[in-house]
């Protein structure tokens, strides 16, 4: 297999637009990133920042119309997924790249037994006979920690709890031992204890199988312990890209800073108001290309931010930030300064 510098997946300048009555929504607008074998990439961002669309674009599951992948390459083992036929993409989906979805309550077919749903995938991709597929399904259910897997394999999804259903989804996603697992907010619909279990499970299985993982979330706490690299998305663009420890220690973008600051800290004084980034995410259908999409909400914004689109600044070997003042913000973070964006702290004026 041809591999380009150890990259399993290379996304280059991906643009996915949706044609709506309200104009063209640039849900993903020029995203590029690389993922190495066995690594975990976190994609964080607010709702509507294009996280999910990016990953649906990777395996060409964008509903079309209205969606359209306008440009870009997705190189998987050096092969451009965008240029494959539908049939070839189908053979990759579920076998070499698989997905876990946000809501385990609705991602299982309520009319099919759990075993059937697991068997469908392996019968399709691994050419299993019914018996082989059934044994494999039971084995996968055991792997993901379903107690009494054999007895419960023939249950219907409604007989499983939310956490168990997400385990089933993981079993399904991993049953063909994919090279890439895309987990689209796998824990959002679960309560905190189950979240921890599911994340631990994904981490453990990842280590055992060597699968690369893309973890999409809006919860910074989730990516902190799980990922090697993080991409921060906003308005369909990559705002910051850095190794996880670096990003948490020294964010180089005002938006990332705002996100980090929004995470509630148990050490805060009781009754202290929680920080929030003022304003709302922009309407990506009516965004001027000649300004920073975050300018209206940014504590650091100056005139230039409303006049020119910011550059994608390289801060060090692996750290990039989309900001006119990236280097300044980065330097501030490293020095431990500028932590409290003036004017919007604890105040209610941003709402």
């Amino acid at each position, binding site marked *: 297999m041809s591999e380009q510098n150890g990259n399993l997946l290379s996304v280059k300048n991906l643009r996915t637009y949706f044609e709506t009555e309200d104009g063209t929504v640039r849900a993903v607008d020029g995203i590029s990133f690389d993922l190495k074998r066995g690594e975990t990439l976190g994609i964080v961002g607010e709702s509507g920042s294009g996280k999910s669309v990016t990953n649906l674009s990777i395996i060409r599951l964008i509903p079309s119309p209205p969606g359209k992948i306008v440009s870009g390459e997705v190189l998987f083992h050096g092969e451009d997924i965008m240029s494959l036929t539908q049939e070839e993409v189908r*053979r990759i*989906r579920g076998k070499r790249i*698989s*997905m876990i979805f946000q809501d385990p309550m609705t991602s299982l077919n309520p009319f099919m037994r759990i075993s059937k749903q697991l068997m469908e995938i392996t019968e399709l991709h691994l050419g299993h006979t019914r018996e082989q597929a059934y044994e494999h399904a039971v084995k996968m259910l055991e792997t*993901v920690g379903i107690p009494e897997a054999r007895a419960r394999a023939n249950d219907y999804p409604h007989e499983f709890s939310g956490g168990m259903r997400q385990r089933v989804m993981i079993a399904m996603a991993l049953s063909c031992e994919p090279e890439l697992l895309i987990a689209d907010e796998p824990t959002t619909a679960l309560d905190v204890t189950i979240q921890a279990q599911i994340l631990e499970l994904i981490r453990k299985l990842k280590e055992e199988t060597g699968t690369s993982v893309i973890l999409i979330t809006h919860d910074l706490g989730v990516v902190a312990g799980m990922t090697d690299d993080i991409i921060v998305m906003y308005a369909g663009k990559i705002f910051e890209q850095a190794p996880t420890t670096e990003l948490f220690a020294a964010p180089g973008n005002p938006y990332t800073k705002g996100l980090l600051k929004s995470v509630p800290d148990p050490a805060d004084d009781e009754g202290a108001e929680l920080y929030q980034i003022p304003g709302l995410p922009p309407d990506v259908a009516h965004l001027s290309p000649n300004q920073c999409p975050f300018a209206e909400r940014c504590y650091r914004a100056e005139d230039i931010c409303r006049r020119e689109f910011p550059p994608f600044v390289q801060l060090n070997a692996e750290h990039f930030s989309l900001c006119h003042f990236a280097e300044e913000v980065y330097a501030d973070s490293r020095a431990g300064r500028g932590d409290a964006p003036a004017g919007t702290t604890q105040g209610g004026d941003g709402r």
Partner: protein
Amino acid sequence: MSEERTPQVPTEEGRQQTQEARGPALTPRGTPQAPPVRARAGDEIHPFPETAVGEGDVRNADAGPEAVRGTSLWSDAWRRLVRNKLAVFGMVVVGLIVVAVVVGPAIIKAATGYTYDYIPPDSKLVQSFPPFTAPDGTFSWAHPMGTDSAGRDMLARVLLGGRISLMVGIISTVVSLIIGISWGATAGYLGGKVDDVLMRIVDVLYAIPYMMIVIVLLAFFGAQSPLKQIFLLFAALGAVSWLTMARIVRGQIISLKNQEFVLAARAGGVSTAKIIFRHLVPNALGPVIVYATLTIPSVMLSEAFLSFLGLGVQAPYASWGSLAQDGIQNIAIFPWQLIFPGVTMALTLFSLNFLGDGLRDALDPQMRKF
């Protein structure tokens, strides 16, 4: 809200206990040391109410162990159906009539030697006798429904008529199911231009009076032989009764296709045809079954109407419609020749409609509460 359903959950102590009972939190491989916990009487299946989605997930302590097994959608619907007296009545009557028309003719033949097309060789017997009357005017069991003007046993003919009427109803409905589901599911799932074209065809066909199509079809191709005529009737009625079915299925599929399990199946590489027929159609079956149950009587009625006009079933075969047509010619003198097929048909149609209504109530999620 959650307090009501799970009174014991919010206590910290309870959480710890359940946590202990579940063994170590993380045991992704293999089973925990303690016997794995399947909920028993007194147990919560969900320790945390946030993950409980419906009444099926949280059970009260005194429900007993068998409640844990859970009830399927179908057994739920069945429970509601049998609570509906009219629907049960309909089910019983339809059941009895189906049994009667299937085994009845054979029993009559064994008991009395009469069949639907047996015309007595003795010319004195070729005439209409009232029910329970022997040729000499005395009481007799030989013809409980009397005979028709050719001396044929009415009971045998009514049963055969029922057999053909029900067959027309069921086969035409199956034909309409096959066409309607494939058509509607394809249109609904693919959407866009395909949907537009397929559904505009349906609209156009809707605009043409369907009886007209059937009459033209039957007049054009019919009357080669009585048996061929019956098959033509199956096809013609099936071909016009799938339109509403297609619309119902399309609507269901459209509401289902954006659910995440469809996306999950696509992400798993499942083909479009398999997604439609393995994932979507079974989920749409409730309304389809209801509509199919209500299609059977309406098709039977159409058949009766056509046969009454002389376009449907031809002698020596009989259907309830053609029997009624024979009977109406002599209604003043031999009323039983109309009454028996008429009453049987009315009873069957009523029962099927009751059953259909009952099924609709039982399968309709809006009616869940009762």
